[in-house]
Structure formats: C-alpha cells, structure tokens
C-alpha cells in the first residue's frame, strides 16, 4: 500500500463488544483493477466493431461480456458482504519481532468465498479461500519497534474474486492488541548487579528443584512426592525431599543501572531472561513497583509485563 488513505474519513467495519466485526453493505468499497480497466477498453473496441459491421452477433458477445462485468461486480462485492471477523488473542513478543495477529473469518453463507485477502501496512498480505458455512483464518503481522501495548491497526480486507476485474475492499478496525516486551539488551555485567543476596539459611530441603533425600511419609504430603519406587521395593511409604532454595537470589534494579531509560529496561529484560534460563530466583525493582523474588515462567511473565508497561 503506497497510498495511505485518510482512514479517519473512510468508512470502516468496527468490532462490537464481543470483538466481532461484521462487514455490512455500506462499508464496502469497489473499484476496477488494472485488468478491469483493460477489460473496459476491450469492451469498447468490441462495441465499436459490432456497431461498424452492424453485426448483431458481435453485439451479443459484447453485451454478454458487459453483463459478465456487471455480474462480477455484484459477486466481488458480495464476496465480502456479511463476513464476520474476530481477532484472536496474541502471545506477547519482544520489540523488533513482528506481532502476528490471527484473524478468524466466519462465513455464515452456504456458498464459498474464495480469494479473501488481508493487507496491513508494511507486512506481507495473506489470502485464503473460505468454504460455505465455515471458518477460516488469516494472519496479519505488525512490525514492532517499541515496547508497550501494540494494537492491531486498521486492516484492509479485499477480494478480486471472481475474475480479477474489480477489487472490493473494506477497512476493518478490530479490537486486538499485543503486549510488546522491551527488546533484550546486552548482558548486565556482574559488577553492575551488586545486590546478589544469598539465602541466609542454606538448603532446608523445602525447595522444589534438587532431589535431596527421602523421609518418612507424613499425612498431608503430596502424592506427587511419594516415592512409589520405594514402595514397590516393599519399603515403607516414603516422601521425596527436594532442595534448591539454597541457590542464588537476584535482584534486578532499574536504579542501579545507568544510561537511557529504554536501554536500561532492555538490559533488565535480558537480565530477566537470563535469570529465568538459569533458574535463579529473581525479583524486579522498578522505582515504586517491586516484584518480589520468585522463579519460573509466571515470574518471568510478570516481570516482562512490568517492564513492557513501565512508564
């Protein structure tokens, strides 16, 4: 899309409260394509020939093709009419990665709708054929640059079916957004993270990671932790003990880094990823917002979200 239409003034299909945007008749634009204009020139030539030779069969063919053009207009328009779009939820991405929205298309009509295409500024178009009374999906990828909330911009849904002589399109505003984490920056040198805090007590065998040993089963122990192997060996019912709480605890603190805010956030992001990968227990301090140390995917997500939304 080289030409950027003034969307503000264009009619567009807007998603309702349930997130479905239905394409109604007055939202559809239609214009001939280049091939369509050539077709028009062809029709004029045919008509001139038929008139000049006063050839009635020539008139017939010319008008058959003219009629065909008109029928195509109806079909192209109808190919979009009544289509229902819903944007599906999207996994967060890091800044710089494209945010790919899946857009579900619902064809309520019994007949098929071939050649439905979606265009989004700056991304590859996607195209699909919908069978009668079925659902399909298209993907629209938005390039991301900055962290934060990335909303799906206005998309253009278009079709050239059946003959490519005309293109019908409509603008659709879908209510969808994708969280963009900061792009992971360079690694934080250890010197910049002085606040390494070791667990004072050491391993008490109440962690969750490393197998430490067995002890007698007590009522209330999780059956997951029962050593079934030991039971099979006809020993008593025993419970497995895990350690790991001895490992390092890391605080990632915005204040301790220097430089541009975005660069600092990027480095914190890297810190979160690394800490999660190394299975450290880590916490995040962003000025007022403090995320208590924790570990695992949930902690990672919580921290990254905080980084993405930080102002």
């Amino acid at each position, binding site marked *: 899309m080289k030409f950027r239409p003034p969307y503000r003034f264009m009619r567009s299909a807007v998603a309702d409260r349930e997130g479905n945007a239905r394409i109604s008749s007055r939202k559809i634009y239609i214009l001939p394509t280049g*091939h369509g204009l*050539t*077709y028009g020139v*062809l029709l004029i*030539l*045919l008509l*001139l*020939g*038929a*008139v*000049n*030779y*006063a*050839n*009635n*069969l*020539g*008139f*017939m*063919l*010319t*008008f*058959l*093709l*003219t*009629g*065909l053009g*008109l*029928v*195509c*207009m*109806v*079909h192209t*328009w*109808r190919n979009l*009419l*009544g289509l229902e779009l819903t944007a599906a939820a999207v996994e967060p991405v890091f800044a710089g990665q494209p945010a790919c929205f899946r857009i579900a298309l619902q064809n*309520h*009509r*019994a*007949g098929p709708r*071939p*050649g439905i*295409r979606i265009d989004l500024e700056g991304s590859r*178009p996607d*195209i*699909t*054929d919908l069978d009668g*009374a079925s659902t399909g999906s298209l993907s629209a990828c938005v390039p991301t640059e900055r962290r934060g909330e990335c909303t799906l911009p206005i998309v253009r849904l278009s079709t*050239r*079916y*059946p*003959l*490519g*002589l005309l293109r019908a399109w409509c603008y659709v505003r879908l209510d969808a957004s994708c969280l963009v984490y900061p792009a992971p920056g360079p690694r934080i040198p250890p010197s910049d993270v002085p606040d390494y805090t070791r667990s004072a007590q050491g391993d008490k065998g109440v962690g969750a990671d490393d197998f430490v040993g067995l002890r007698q089963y007590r009522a209330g122990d999780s059956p997951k932790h029962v050593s079934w192997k030991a039971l099979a060996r006809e020993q008593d019912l025993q419970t497995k003990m895990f350690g790991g709480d001895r490992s390092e605890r890391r605080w990632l603190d915005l204040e301790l880094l220097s430089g541009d805010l975005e660069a600092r956030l990027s480095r914190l992001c890297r810190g979160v990823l690394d800490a999660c990968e190394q299975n450290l227990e880590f916490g995040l301090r962003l000025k007022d917002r403090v995320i208590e140390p924790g570990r695992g995917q949930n902690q990672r997500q919580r921290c990254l979200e905080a980084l993405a939304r930080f102002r």
Partner: protein
Amino acid sequence: MIPDPKRKLSQRELLFLIALLCLSVGPHVLHLQPWISAFFIGMVTLRLLGLSRPALLPGRFLLFLLTIAGLANALAHYPLMFGREAGVALLTSMLALKLLEMKRERDIYVVVYLSLFTLITQFLYRQEMLLVVYVFLVVTGLIAMLMHTNMMRSPSRPTGLLVRSGGLLLQALPLMLIMFFLFPRFSSPLWDLGIRDNRAVTGISDNISPGSVSRLSRSRAVAFRVDFDQDRIPEPARRYWRGPVLWDTDGRQWTAGDQIPERASDFFASGKPVDYSVILEPTGGKWLFALDLPHQVPTEASLEADFQLIHRGPQKRRFQYRTSSYLNYNTGALSEFQRFRGLQLPDNITPRMISLVAQWRGGSDSALVDQALAYFNEQPFHYTLYPALLGDNPADQFLFDSRQGFCEHYATSFTLLMRIAGIPARVVAGYQGGEVNPISGHLVVRQSDAHAWSEVWLPDLGWVRIDPTAAVAPERIEQPLDLDRISEEIGAPIDFVPVDISFVGALMEQFNWSMDALDASWHRWVLGYSKKRQSKLMDLLGLGFLKGSQLVYAMVGITAVAVTLMTLALIYRGRPKPNPVQAQYQRFSNRLKKLGLQRRSYEGPRDYGRRILHRRPDLRGQVEPILRLYIGIRYGRMNNLANLRRLKQMVGGFRP
C-alpha cells in the same frame, strides 16, 4: 498461491491456455490464406513440443526473428493491411507469437483478452446458431481461466471451474438480452472499411437458358421466408414470386437487358392488398422477390416499370424487407417502347414455328393465347427436371422434337410464339409456391420452387401472367416438387402423386420444420434485428417514445434495475439457513418475544426454560414438553422426521 503477476505458469495452465487459444482461432484457420494458417499451426506445434522439452522454445532473439517472419507473412498475403481479412490474419499471427511468449500469470489476461477479440471476428464470417454455441463454450473456458487465477486453490478438476464460469455467464445472459434489444442500432456503418464478401451464392440470375432453372430447382436450399401479416397466405396458385423480367433473347438465352427508362406506372387494382415481410437468403442478385404485383417499395429498393423490385446492391447477406402486393390488377396501357421490346424476335425463328402460330390466327389475342396453351396441353409434352440437352435452336427443338422440358423451356418458347403472333410478351423469372411451416406459420420458399413464366400484354387486361407449365403439369402449381422422388434420368417425368409418409418420416419432417422455424426466428430476432425492428419492438413494449440516445438511458436504467434485482436474489439465496430444528426453536423464542422473554445468545434451552417458568409459571404445561422434545432431538437420539413434525405442531400451537 498469492496472486503474483510474475508467477510462472504451470504445465497444466499452459496446456489449457494453448487449447483455449487454438479453439478461439480455430474456425479462422479454414478460410485464411494457407500460409497464415500454416504459420499459426506451426507455432502451436512448436509450443506443444516445448511443453515437454522447454529447450525447443525460441530464445529472445529467435522470437524476434519469428515476429518479423510472422508480420512479413501477413503482409505478403494481405499487402495493404486493409479490411477484415487482413486484420484477422494479423491477429492470428500475433496470437501465434503470444503462444510462444507466454510464461507468467499476467500473460493469462493478455491471452484471454486477445482470444475474446478473436472470437468476435468469427462472426464476421459466419453467423450460424452452432457457431454461437461454440463461441459461448469457448468464452466459458476463457472465463474459467480468469477465475482460476483469482482463487487460492482452484478446484482440482477443470469441470468445477467450468461449471462456475458457466454459471456466471448464465447470470450475465439476461443483462445481455436487455442491452442487446435496447442498444440503439444505426442504419449505416460508422465508417466503411471496404469490406467485400466474395462467397458464391445461388439464386435466380438475370439470364435464363434452357436448363438453368431446372439446375437451380435441384437444390432444397431456402431462397426466402415470408411472414404474412395476419397469416393471410394466398392460395398456392397465386403464389407467384416475381423476380427479374427478361425482355431480350438471342434465340438461346433470355436476358433482362437494360432497365426500361420509364417510371413505374400506377396500375388498377382491386381487392385488399397482401402485406408481408420477407427474409431473403443471400442471392448474389439485386432482385427482391414479391408477389404479383408489388405496389409498396421497400427501403433502399426501387420499383421498375415492369414491376421488378431492384435493390441498391447485390444481396450478399441475409436481408429482410417489407412489401405489399395486389393479387388482382390491371396494368393498363402499353408504352411504345415496351411494345417494341416485347415484340423483338431473334434470328433463329424457323418456318415451322411461324406456320404453327399461323394456324391459331383468326380470333382475338386472348383466344390465341388459349390455343397456344391447348397446344402444350394436347401435344405429348413432358414436364421433367432433367431435360435432354438442346442444340443451337432450343425453342424449335423443344417445340417440335424433344418436347420434354422444365418451366423455362415452356415459358421461353411460349413467349417466342406470342411474339411471332404479334402479342407483346416477356419472360418473368422467380419462384412459384412455397410451403407453410406448420410450426411458425411462415412460408418457406426454396430454390426448388424456382420458376419461369410468361407475361403477355392483352388489350383491356394489360400485362397478364400466363404460365404454360400449368398447361402441362397443373400439379406443379399446386404443390412443390418432391425432390426425393424424382429419378435423375434424363426426361424422367415428375410424379406429383402424394404418398403416405411413415411415422419416422413424419417425425423427421416435424423436426425439419422446427429447425426451419428456429432458423427464421433466429434471423428475425438476432441476425436481422435492425433499427426498424427495434422501433417496432419498442412500440410493442409501449416504449415507442424512446428515440436515439434515450434508448441508451433506458438501457442503462433497466440494466441497473436488473442488476439490483439480481443482487437481491443472490443475497436472499445466500442467507444463512438454520436447520429445521433450530428454525422451530427460533420460532418458539420469537413467540415469547412479546413477553420480553426472548432467548439470550448465551442461554441454553434448560436455562431458558427455567427463566420462562420463573416469570410465567402458568406456561409450564406447554413450555416443558416443547423444550424436552427440542433437547431430545437436538442433543439426544430423537432426531427423526416424526419428532420434528411433532415439534413443529407443538410450536405452531404455542401461543402465549
């Protein structure tokens, strides 16, 4: 595939494109110069070989050379590049080259458009119904090709696509009819490209020699069709279709000679005139045929002093005209010039001819005519379609020696005898009779109805038609020749006795008449649809006030209305149809709408029922069985026709 104009075409697509292109050009190959056709066929062969061995396809330089060769070929055979043939030759050569060059998706459009253009040129050569069907089928294929490029995944079999594209074309058909009948027709071409049509056509010509009419009569081809107003068809004996009037003879051949430099005189007529319109097949002659005697002159024709209707130029296409005739007439006095021409005698009049005429002298002119007719009737004259060849003096030989001949023998020798007797006479050529098509009610006149007769001028009566053939074979005037039953031996008599036709024969005849009726309406409504017919049709539709550009506005308006109606129909047809069970459930919910108890989109039937009964406990007796049955059909094992009918009944009777 995402449409990409640069995408390479697959083998299959190429094969279909080649086939469609060949089908579009196909019929041209038969009548173009052999070298142009050969070039085309050569390029197609090369292209087909190139499908399996792409190395054979010419590179850019070779293609350039081939283009030069193709152009040179077209130029060599049509040096001036002027007119229809040259245009088609050039188009064919270009298409042949396009074949070699097409590789990518965008070429599909080029090929399809060029093919469509080629298809319309087919109609410049032939206009049969069969060709129209052929063109329609090829167009279906071409449109299917366009459809294919605009779908992500095309149906695996081409038939699916063809059905769809055929469907599109069928939807375009009503629009075509509207535009076809409403688009204003012009009476003259926008510009003249010097089109010349050189097809050989048969028909009555301006000269008659012994054997010429009988040769023509051996053809079953249709000469013209006549549509009489109010179906007032004259009886067979009065169906004399007047063509050229022949005045001059050299003793062997009769010719029309120069036109008489007189204006057509008014004649006295009685009775009601017969109005009719004629669809004339191409004849190559300039005569328009009309019943004796025409008084109304069709446009672009003139009525001569001897009552021939002469058209501006030769008839090389089907042509339709209207005229009107009086069957009872008296042409009145004779001009000196006509008397002089009507009495000219050739050099080869023999004494026995003179003495024959001398025997009949004594009474009035009309008595003499009767005696001459009686002579033909009483002497052993035979009527045959295959007369023996005659020598230098055919009239003498026929009258006294061979005595077997077809109508032209009788007409010419009778005319000569009259001139010897001093009665002005002339030969008229044309057609006699015609068969009524029982299906459409129009009269079909065939070449086998070709006929020649005499006209003599009698005081008080004017020019009177005398048909000496009728004196020999009166049946000829009442019924057409049955060519299937005439033996081809020389001198074989023509047998007019009708025979019983078998059932299959009758069926065949019925079929033939249907085809004839179809052909006539094909001409009437399609090929011969002209400015005149258009204004008549508009009058008939009550749109007679539309003239010229107003017709265009009407065409656009009516087409727009038709498109709108079609759109509504398509939307109606495409509306989502709930299954019958859900439809009943919806009906049930609609009944409760008035009570403000419409089903919510997220509500299941049980919750819905609970809500209804909470508000209206009195409905329990009706609501519960309905919902129970609905749940049973929809989610349980009660889905059968009987239950559905019961549900329908229950919902129908539910009126809260």
